């Protein structure tokens, strides 16, 4: 146990250690820490690699059955990725969270021998494959321990020599340590919120003194300890405490739709689906819950629940009563142990929350911030007005809320960031108009014609003419003619501004500057069904079109390619076109339906858009 002091704050680690002592490997089981891994040097690494590639297929087999297939090998930038190398590189740098936080993905990518540009893909690969794998590994170990060293479980572990397993665990532990550090940051920041009583109670006991607690639970109450460990592990995987701050950059600021919700939903779904998971441990009876408070992570769950119910009922002082009133699903505590849950889902939601931790700790670590963080600031102000008990209550709610939210349907609550790095400097209003730079008011490029012309207002804003003198109204020629007419008219009206506004670069006319061959090449690239290639193309278009500027390409894309595609779509499925959704657009190129739909007229794709069938203009 020589490494304990380093981890004295690490509850989850302690738990792991505790379990080990109880479990199959007495003695030399505590984490040797990073040093060991480093010293292990080549030999150790080889062994690890060997182990990794033994374990990984087992994991895939396991997770594929519930999670959909994850293809191997993993290709990034057209090269096969050495997952083990990635895994160990990230671990060397302190784990996923730390790498993300410190922006080390670039160096990881470089060391993998890849172009740093693809660092986000590498990160994604890690996220998709290895984070989950790591979790699975941990889970497997724990489960094995629970079964008292029964190596006969079918997780592909029975072949493993003990010492290699230990080393692997060392890898995991170094990661755990980081997480615990992060957690420490969190508890620090929470403390700063003057959250004296309750939070100290909670964090103090749970996060800082787990050593004692663990020993106690181990020695004194075996069953409870078992349970304790369970919930502790549950917490470890719990969104709120897993300190992956890097995740803020990953998930929080995403504006695009993507699967922001799915992680959460999957998590919820699993709990709903497996209420009676055989691995569920007995939970103390509700009557005992109150005394359970604050002793371990189970208590923390209770607090979270309490916070939720407080928030729902908005009566902050009925904490204990609402505690008993509300029922909580047993599976809530067991989520970590439960099998068959899509672990990525959990990962998603688990990584979203700690961002709050980050933003808080950040603003209060910021030395130049006189306000500290917002919670501190605002609640201090409130504290002046409110009776003290009430303040503590609200504080408790607000801090535990972050823990509680992911289990509810409610959205995550984000606070407005406060401090000199966030607010604009607004001068006080003096009543005197300050100088506004009148030099830069924009250059007038279009003047109003004088009032006499205003009289002809009937001309302004008229729509499409219903009648025209064309032989076949609405035919392609007719439409083309009128487009050209309007274009001409505009050109005459606008003069040079026509060019400055880029009207000469609008519409399918752009294609006149392209050769047929170039157009075909462009189309082929766009249609290629490898999404990354498409992205890659835009990263480096000059490789394909050395003579075209990026601007030309973009202009061609929007003015010709998309319009042609749209024309095609208009005919195939006029009622459900969404030319703006290029995910679907290109997706449909790549998936079966779209491919077939487009493949047919593939060769005469261009002709299609230009031929005479466009009669659907009415």
């Amino acid at each position, binding site marked *: 146990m020589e490494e304990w002091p380093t981890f004295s704050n690490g509850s989850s680690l302690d738990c792991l250690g505790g379990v080990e002592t109880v479990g199959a490997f007495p003695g030399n089981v505590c984490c040797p820490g990073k040093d060991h891994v480093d010293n292990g040097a080549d030999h150790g690494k080889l062994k690890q690699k060997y182990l990794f590639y033994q374990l990984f297929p087992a994991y895939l087999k396991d997770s594929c059955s519930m999670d959909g297939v994850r293809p191997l090998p993993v290709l990034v930038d057209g090269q096969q990725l050495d997952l083990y190398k990635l895994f160990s590189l990230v671990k060397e740098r302190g784990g996923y969270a730390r790498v993300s936080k410190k*922006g080390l993905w670039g160096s990881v990518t470089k060391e993998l021998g890849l172009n740093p*540009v693809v*660092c*986000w893909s590498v990160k994604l690969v890690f996220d998709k494959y290895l984070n989950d794998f790591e979790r699975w590994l941990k889970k497997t170990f724990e489960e094995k321990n629970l079964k008292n060293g029964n190596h006969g479980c079918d997780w592909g572990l029975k072949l493993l020599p003990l010492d290699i397993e230990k080393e692997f665990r060392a890898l995991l532990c170094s990661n755990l340590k980081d997480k615990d550090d992060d957690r420490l940051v969190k508890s620090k920041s929470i403390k700063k919120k003057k959250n004296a009583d309750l939070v100290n109670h909670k964090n103090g006991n749970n996060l800082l003194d787990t050593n004692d607690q663990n020993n106690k639970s181990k020695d004194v109450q075996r069953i409870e300890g078992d349970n304790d460990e369970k919930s502790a592990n549950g917490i470890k995987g719990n969104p709120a405490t897993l300190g992956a701050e890097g995740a803020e950059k990953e998930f929080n600021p995403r504006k695009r*739709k993507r699967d922001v*919700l799915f992680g959460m939903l999957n998590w919820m779904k699993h709990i709903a689906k497996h209420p009676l998971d055989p691995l569920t441990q007995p939970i103390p009876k509700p009557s005992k819950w109150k005394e359970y408070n604050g002793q371990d992570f189970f208590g923390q769950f209770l607090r979270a629940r309490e916070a939720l119910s407080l928030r729902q009922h908005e009566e902050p002082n009925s904490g204990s009563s609402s505690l008993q009133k509300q029922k909580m699903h047993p599976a809530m505590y067991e989520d970590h142990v439960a099998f068959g849950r899509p672990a990525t889902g959990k990962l998603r939601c688990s990584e979203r929350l700690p961002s709050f931790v980050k933003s808080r700790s950040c603003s209060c670590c910021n030395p130049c911030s006189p306000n500290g963080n917002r919670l501190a600031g*605002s609640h201090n*102000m409130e504290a002046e007005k409110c009776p003290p008990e009430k303040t503590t209550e609200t504080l408790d709610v607000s801090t535990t809320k972050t823990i509680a939210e992911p289990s509810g349907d409610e*959205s*995550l*609550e*984000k606070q407005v960031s*406060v401090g000199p*790095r966030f*607010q*604009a400097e*607004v*001068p*006080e*209003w003096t009543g005197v*108009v300050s100088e*506004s730079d009148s030099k*830069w008011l*924009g250059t007038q*490029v279009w003047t*109003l014609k004088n009032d006499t012309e205003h009289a002809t207002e009937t*001309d*302004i*804003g008229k*729509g*499409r003419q219903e009648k025209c003198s064309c032989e076949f109204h609405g035919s392609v020629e007719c*439409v083309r003619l009128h*487009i050209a007419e*309007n274009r001409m008219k505009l050109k005459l009206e*606008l003069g040079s*501004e026509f*060019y400055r506004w*880029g009207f000469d670069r*609008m519409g399918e*006319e752009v294609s006149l500057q392209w050769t047929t061959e170039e157009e075909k090449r462009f189309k082929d690239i766009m249609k290629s069904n490898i999404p990354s290639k*498409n*992205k890659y193309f*835009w*990263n480096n278009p000059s490789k394909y079109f050395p003579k075209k500027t990026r601007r030309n390409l973009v202009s061609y*894309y*929007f*003015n010709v390619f998309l319009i042609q595609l*749209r*024309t095609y779509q*208009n005919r195939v499925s*006029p*009622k459900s*076109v*969404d030319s*703006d*959704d*290029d*995910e679907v657009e*290109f997706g449909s190129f790549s998936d079966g339906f779209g491919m077939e739909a487009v493949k047919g007229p593939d060769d005469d794709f261009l002709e299609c858009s230009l031929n005479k069938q466009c009669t*659907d203009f009415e």
Partner: protein
Amino acid sequence: MRSKDRIAYFYDGDVGSVYFGAKHPMKPHRLCMTHHLVLSYDLHKKMEIYRPHKAYPVELAQFHSADYVEFLNRITPDTQHLFLNELTKYNLGEDCPVFDNLFEFCQIYAGGTIDAARRLNNQLCDIAINWAGGLHHAKKCEASGFCYINDLVLGILELLKYHARVLYIDIDVHHGDGVEEAFYFTDRVMTVSFHKYGDSFFPGTGDAKEIGEREGKFYAINVPLKDGIDDSSFTRLFKTIISKVVETYQPGAIVLQCGADSLAGDRLGCFNLSIDGHAECVSFVKRFNLPLLVTGGGGYTKENVARCWTVETGVLLDTELPNEIPQNDYIKYFAPEFSLKVPNGPIENLNSKSYLSTIKMQVLENLRCIQHAPSVQMQEVPPDFYIPEFDEDEQNPDERIDQHTQDKHIQRDDEYYDGDNDNDQMNIS
């Protein structure tokens, strides 16, 4: 009869030619399409069109931190791999990619909003439009949600040089967090945002409980809504709240962010507004006859964005546009109907009547705090008190407030403030 509003419309031909990258929902090309459609409808014959200056870094740094602006200026797609730490620090990558001419793009749209504000300040126009602007998520020191430079904050800061109070209204489906955050502590800007809130919808802020802090307490208003809100409930709520806000707050100018992602069928949005409903909000704000700065914002179904902002340009010009889109180079984008109005979908409105009325009550309740607060505040900050008179002097009284509002204003002055005013003046003299 009031078509005499002078409209300044800002556009730069380069703004639509940048590309955020494959599969990125933000497509500046929509600005080309909008401009093209506006001109196809001959709307340019009723307004002045300006090319904005490219805002200088120092102008951008009036709100943003200098290091951030400097970094935006320096970074290019080719060099970004050298600055991974900074990219993370400034939240670039993924949602806010670094692309060619990024900084120029920012300079143009920010320049447009700043110029628009200056033209309003100098009373060179009554309404200024910059569809390229409205990037309301950008933060002081970082990019966020496709936004790099917060032109709205810069525009408002410019307006604050001439106006004691500026009202910011945001009908983008996303919360206007950047603007709210920038003015969270001040009562000189009131931010009102109508947005989708909940289900981890970006950006995650915008609960009704966020009301501002310190002097800014009660000067940030959030109207969190759920999926599928339709025209009638949205416009009713909008009108109730905004009329109360204007009546209470008496802004000197209004900035309206018209994000078109609140329209039905938007790729990222989840509301069910028709273009008419959206435009009705614009028209309602226009009727206050206050200096008005209108910007774009979100909007990720290009052709609907073009339709929407064209219709709204028409609304601001008091011109009703015929439904059939004139033949133009982009006509094929507007298939299959080739019309301006697109029907809103059969989406369920998850906003129950009771929910909406709860929100409304809450907002109005907070507004009431403002009405009462000044008795305290006005004494502490006397300048605030002189503004109404000043504003009236500054502006052409014919144009400013319609008689009804003005009457109310005068009456209220008598009722509540006269005594305080006297005190104040005595104190000063």
